[in-house]
């Protein structure tokens, strides 16, 4: 069996190393598939569905589907882009995303996706749910209004024994991500900063670190999310 697989994305012939997921294989070929709950180095979850692509006629999440020989992948197709846009819009109306007052604005992946998709207003009615801010932890603030329940922090932030410091509490539409009351005490400064960086939105904030980057130098002020992948020159073999 060859070490490489051949496949197409929107008709473009691509080649990538076997044994990786579609998003990573696409990245190797300079093609950006939008993701939100996915994070480099963390086991993919496929929960946000933003990375949905059509593989040989079936919708699949590109972050959890391994690349295979002969896959015909549809990515930047109108109905798929519309589906992704609608997910971003749903996330905006489901929580309380007040961008003008958010510490993560400009570095927020949800906002950056909205910029990329040129979303001016969500098509769905705003829900304005009543959620609390938990500032009880000495190092971090858990801002529940902004949490999109992607589980990135639960998957990525662990103590030395591999136990998750963040956890889900309650169920269904009342579910929320909280700091484990016992394990949370061990949260080091480095882990707290990592948790803030891992959070795609402004839901985990290190205390006294908000608004640290001035407007104009933030991650998505000048470059759209994914443009770093698209701008890489790929040498075709």
């Amino acid at each position, binding site marked *: 069996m060859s070490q490489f697989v051949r496949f197409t994305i929107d008709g473009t012939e691509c080649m990538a190393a076997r044994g990786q997921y579609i998003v990573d294989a696409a990245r190797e070929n300079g093609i950006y598939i939008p993701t939100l709950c996915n994070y480099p180095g963390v086991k993919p979850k496929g929960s946000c569905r933003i990375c949905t692509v059509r593989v040989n006629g079936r919708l699949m999440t590109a972050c959890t589907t391994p690349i295979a020989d002969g896959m015909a992948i549809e990515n930047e197709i109108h109905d798929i882009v519309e589906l992704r846009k609608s997910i971003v819009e749903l996330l905006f109306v489901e929580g*309380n995303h*007040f*961008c*003008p*007052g*958010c510490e993560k*604005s*400009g570095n927020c992946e949800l*906002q950056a996706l*909205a*910029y990329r998709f*040129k979303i*001016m*207003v*969500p098509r769905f*009615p*705003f829900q*304005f*749910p*009543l959620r609390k801010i938990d500032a009880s932890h000495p190092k971090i603030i858990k801002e529940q209004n902004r949490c999109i329940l992607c589980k990135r922090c639960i998957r990525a932030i662990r103590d030395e024994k591999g136990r998750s410091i963040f956890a889900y509490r309650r169920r269904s539409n009342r579910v929320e991500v909280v700091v484990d009351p016992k394990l949370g005490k061990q949260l080091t400064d480095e882990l707290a900063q990592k948790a803030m960086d891992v959070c795609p939105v402004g839901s985990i904030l290190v205390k006294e670190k908000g608004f640290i980057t001035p*407007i104009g130098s933030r991650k998505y*002020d*000048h*470059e*759209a999310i994914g443009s770093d992948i698209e701008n890489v020159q790929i040498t075709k073999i």
Partner: protein
Amino acid sequence: MSKPVVATTSLAGCFGCHMSFLDIDDRILELIELVEFNKSPINDIKKFTKKCDIGLIEGGCCNSENVHVLKDFREHCKILVSLGECAIMGGLPAMRNGIPISECLAEAYLNGPTVSMNEERILPNDPELPILTDKVYPCHEVVKIDYFLPGCPPSADLIWLTLVALITGDELQLPYEVVKFD
């Protein structure tokens, strides 16, 4: 040919969007060549005197007067544009959504740490005062809105490019940096 007529208003907003509008700097001289202003805080015309082509709405609806003005704008303007985050999603005033209105009033006039003068414990009740809505509504949940310009405030370039596109009928080409939510 008569010039297109523009009206503007600030509902539950901070006038920041109007300030950003004035931030088009000397292009305002070009603008008054292109359009005529009707009801607007910019020229202080209080009432519509004719049908308008473009209405710019800043701020969401937090009381009965906002709703009244917004409906008046819808009646008088062919195109309505939601200007800024407050008009689009309620913005800062909408942070009271989810808190009962009685609690908001009690905090502001009876129990808040800065309340010192209200010894008779009166909540504002003059019949002349507009009644607060149960929550702050985005404009498009009250009337039909045609276009949306996000930002807090929307950048002067975004307002300028949009107005020019609406007036000339050309397709709007927006550079990435112009559209921001903050």
